[in-house]
């Protein structure tokens, strides 16, 4: 019977991805140059423009230091700022892990008991829209100003809400067709959770994690502005600024930016491993 209809042309088509890869391989260098060169040029151009503007218009050092001055300060203070950066990043990452785990955990509970979800979500969305960072002095008071837990708890709370809200969305915004299909197999709610809802929520959660990395670094540094250990980046920045050592402050900001970007990229890498099938990943791969 099979031989009666040997070739449905369709079946023999190469899938698009294969054609794409074989096309790309030889011109790889050109593709990467085309993709990253514009950004690199703008970065370097921006620095040059900054340097020239400060020199030509003779802008005061305490308003805006020259990039070269900042780099020099970074070199002088290298040990201090990197140690402070690491100290603060530990707070940011620790808080992130706390907040993200709690967010995922609570979201999973709401998937099981939708009553909890319906009761909790309006408040979660409301709290998420408030400036939680304003709680930083309160947390300093609760945990003690030099206790890293004071900062981690702020970071945790800030990361918690977007993670929880997005995971709940990912667990509930499942296509009705997928649910009908699972029903047709007589699948249990647990099987539906594990095989449909959780995989469906992964792109939502990872998106929230990416937002969370940025928020966690901001939250750690800003809460340190309200006081904290002398080894902390936020404390260093506010002290140097108070002493008019602006090049040093900027050097520390450089460390903060770099750490935030690295943290973000870690999640991007996780995304590529966990959800390579998702449309957003394919856009990255093919764009």
């Amino acid at each position, binding site marked *: *019977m*099979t031989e*009666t*209809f040997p070739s*449905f042309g*369709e*079946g023999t*088509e190469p*899938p*698009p*991805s294969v054609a794409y890869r074989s096309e790309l391989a030889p011109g790889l260098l050109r593709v990467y140059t085309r993709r990253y060169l514009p950004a690199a040029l703008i970065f370097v151009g921006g620095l040059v423009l900054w340097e020239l503007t400060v020199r030509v218009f003779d802008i005061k050092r305490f308003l805006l230091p020259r990039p070269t001055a900042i780099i020099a300060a970074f070199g002088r203070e290298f040990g201090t700022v990197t140690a402070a950066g690491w100290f603060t990043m530990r707070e940011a990452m620790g808080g992130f892990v706390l907040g993200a785990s709690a967010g995922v955990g609570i979201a999973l509970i709401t998937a099981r008991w939708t009553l909890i979800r319906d009761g909790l979500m309006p408040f979660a969305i409301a709290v998420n829209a408030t400036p939680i960072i304003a709680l930083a002095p309160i947390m300093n008071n609760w945990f003690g100003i030099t206790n890293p837990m004071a900062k981690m708890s702020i970071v945790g709370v800030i990361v918690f809400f977007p993670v929880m809200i997005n995971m709940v969305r990912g667990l509930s915004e499942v*296509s009705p*067709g*997928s649910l*009908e*299909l*699972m*029903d*047709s*197999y*007589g*699948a249990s709610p647990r*099987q539906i959770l594990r*095989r*449909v809802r959780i*995989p469906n929520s*992964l792109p939502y959660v990872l998106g929230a994690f990416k937002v969370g990395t940025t928020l966690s670094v901001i939250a750690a540094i800003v809460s340190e502005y309200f006081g904290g250990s002398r080894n902390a980046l936020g404390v260093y920045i506010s002290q140097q600024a108070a002493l008019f050592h602006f090049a040093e402050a900027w050097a520390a900001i450089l460390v903060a930016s770099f750490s935030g970007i690295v943290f973000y990229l870690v999640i991007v890498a996780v995304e590529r491993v966990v*959800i390579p*099938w*998702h*449309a957003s990943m*394919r856009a990255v791969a093919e764009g």
Partner: protein
Amino acid sequence: MNPSPAVSLTRVSKVFDSGAGRVHALADIDLEVGSGEFVSLIGPSGCGKSTLLRLIGDLLEPSAGSIRVNDKSAHQARVDRDYGIVFQQATLFEWRSVLHNVELPLEVMGRDEAEREQTARSMLDLVQLSEFAGHYPYQLSGGMQQRVAIARALSFEPSILLMDEPFGALDEMTRERMQTEVLRIWAQIGTTVVFVTHSIPEAVFLSSRVVVMSPRPGRIAGIVNNDLPQPRNDDTRESPRFYEKMTEVRETLRGIEAA
């Protein structure tokens, strides 16, 4: 008719109660589908043909009447996995490879891994997609995705296959190839098929009986027995008998409009 039909509906009605008001989707449906039969449900939009299919599959409950599937309640038949279903959208899980999509129902049923893979591979053979086992759904064309959905629906060897406009989203050429393929599979495994469509040539090409439905509320307006010889192929589509049957179905559909 067959003493123990695959599907039997007696005075089945379905009313949807929504905020906007009551919609009478189906009224007084009496229908029997014999074991091994290929029955199409055809009618204009809103005639309740998809609703009827979901009632048979116990994805909806009837407001009145009784539904027996393999001589059991529709609910029991669903729990016993007596039917496989294919929708208009392939509804593949994008995070699973083609092979793992086909394995999904077997996983839900708790079959062991070796058996799952073996069965899924033979199903992919059946729909002629073996070499795409490791691909992801987005790498397949619409027609190929729908063939994966068919393989998935058949993977646990259900005695009944429910199909809800499965080729509605495909282009005409692919659609005709898929119809030929469904008939080939049907001949090969001898399953009962209930097939919802709004295409007259599709209904005539595929089925042994065409159930013509009228809308608001959905009723059975007439049944066209279709004795076109098997196996059917591309020559069937050009035969005079094919056109006669299409005319018969069309006139039954016109009768609805006149009424």
